[in-house]
């Protein structure tokens, strides 16, 4: 089975983010592989362990995206493809068009249900649409049996079980698996695995970011009194100030 895993380089959520215009200021920001994409890499590795095949890690972005591809190679992917751009493009459809060019001929395309930097949740459906393939998004269980697959999704109050034919585009959610850490020999081996870099054939970008702002700082909490005597004032503030009652 030939599996493609799309993986994106994103800022570590533990880093303190500063905004610079319509982008984040990357100075001193640590970048990691998108955690939802790590579920996709792990799923691919488990499928390969079971039934063999090849795993190709694909990332679109500036040269630094190669580092993220090497993370997937260190985890066990076989080779990498870097689709090179200047900076990280925002428009999902434009990126999907570039990725789709590269994603022909795979039995399975795996990627995270969203990237933790833009929260768009749109890439898997966009790819499936362009490639004309079935798509199951945000899966928490996945089995492949020959040319058919079964996946589970968490829906409001229950679990949905879906079946689909291969090839297919599957986006992965938390709960699917526990991604392995790159081992130290794996990190050394990743340097020797093939990595192809070529310009990304981005589609026309129609969505642009107009502004980016950090959430307002929350005001400090205050103590309005103690015990039952404080209740009337608390209710008044919840009604008039917080407007939640």
């Amino acid at each position, binding site marked *: 089975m030939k599996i493609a895993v799309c993986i994106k380089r994103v800022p570590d959520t*533990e*880093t*303190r983010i500063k905004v610079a215009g319509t982008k984040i200021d990357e100075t*001193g920001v*640590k970048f*990691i592989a998108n955690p939802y994409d790590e579920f996709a890499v792990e799923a691919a590795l488990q499928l390969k362990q079971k039934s063999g095949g090849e795993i190709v890690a694909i990332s679109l972005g500036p040269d630094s995206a190669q*580092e993220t591809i*090497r*993370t997937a190679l*260190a985890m066990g992917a076989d080779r990498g493809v870097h689709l090179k751009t200047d900076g990280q493009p925002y428009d999902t459809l434009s990126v999907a068009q570039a990725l789709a060019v590269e994603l022909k001929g795979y039995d399975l395309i795996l990627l995270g249900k969203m990237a933790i930097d833009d929260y768009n949740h749109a890439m898997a459906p966009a790819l499936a649409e362009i490639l004309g393939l079935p798509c199951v998004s945000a899966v928490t269980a996945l089995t492949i049996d020959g040319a058919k697959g079964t996946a589970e999704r968490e829906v409001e109050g229950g679990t949905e079980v879906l079946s689909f034919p291969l090839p297919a585009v599957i986006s992965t959610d938390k709960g699917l698996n526990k991604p392995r*850490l*790159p*081992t*130290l*020999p*794996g*990190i*050394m081996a990743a*340097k020797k695995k093939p990595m192809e870099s070529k310009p990304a054939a981005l589609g026309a970008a129609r969505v642009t970011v107009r502004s980016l702002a950090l959430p307002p700082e929350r005001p400090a909490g205050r103590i309005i009194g103690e015990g039952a005597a404080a209740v009337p004032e608390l209710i008044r503030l919840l009604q008039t100030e917080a407007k939640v009652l």
Partner: protein
Amino acid sequence: MENLDFYAVDTSLSEEERAVRDSVRRFVDERVLPIIGHCYVEGRFPKELIPEMGALGLFGANLPEDYGCAGLNNVAYGLIMQELERGDSGVRSFASVQGSLVMYPIFAFGSEEQKRRYLPLMATGEVIGCFGLTEPDFGSNPAGMITTAKEQGDGSYVINGAKMWITNGSTAHVAIIWAKIGTDQDSIRGFLVPTDSRGFSAKDQKGKLSLRASDTSEIVLQDVCVPKGNLLPKSGGLKSPLMCLTQARYGISWGALGAAMACFEEATSYAKQRVMFDRPIGGFQLQQHRLAEMLTEIVKAQLLVLHLGRLKDAGTYTPQQVSLAKRNNVNMATDIAREARRLLGANGILAEYASMRHMENLESVYTYEGTHDVHTLILGQAITGLNAFN
């Protein structure tokens, strides 16, 4: 964590060095930190982590891939030690002993057959080792050891003696025992002694108030017979175990930095959250002074070990440079741990927080692998050319 790289030292690390550091950091965050406080209080080493540490490739990671090791450079090796000791000195000690004090001497002084037999199994953690140099009456002066190995008519050796303060002593499958085959220090040789040999016994040293999440044992060797093939053929004289100690001390100078980082991070987070006199205590000059001192020492120590690692990779470092780094970094970490504990106030004495555990651990680290004082005298000799030991 951003304060932990105040001088952008990351920009001086290669991609693979950062990848190694990040993998071990995640392992420590996910697997060590949640349990280590309990292990410390219970006085047990978390043995259950050994297979995972082996699978990750942490043991002997700077030894060649030919022997099942990761083949990393010495900076990456140092970063592993830093991250492990950010968890606990006991966990780092386990890896130091396995890698620098057992796998290294097998690699450096062993026969090809010994290397093939032991190193791959030790890299995965299937075989655990310990290092027996120190004796009850010979710590800083190992040349005076009284353990002997007498050659028999058939070429085998009979070993008699006692070793003390042996990390992993009760856990190990194989011990590297240093013993005299003659009378002087030049006759010191290393032997691979299976711990199930007749006459070999190891006893847990009870009552430790430091390194509680680590196995520290006393070993007694009574007429232990090992075949000729268990002698490390290229070992010769006191120089051989001292070469192992230089390897381990190098790792310790990184490890202590990790403990200091953990304490600084805990102190910083606590200072920003703990409110007293209606504001976070981090807003008071006294605590800011504490934190500024800690950060300054951490940055200096980071730059020191990174440069030392580059020298080691270039093959030009000296044991005296390692002494300086071990002495400085462990001392600064000990001070930082104590100051962090104090900043935490009464909470600082609870096992729920890490600083006091690190503070207690670092007293051992200050004392083992060449006490602080011994390293002072090594530097004194390097400066003056005069030997203060004799």
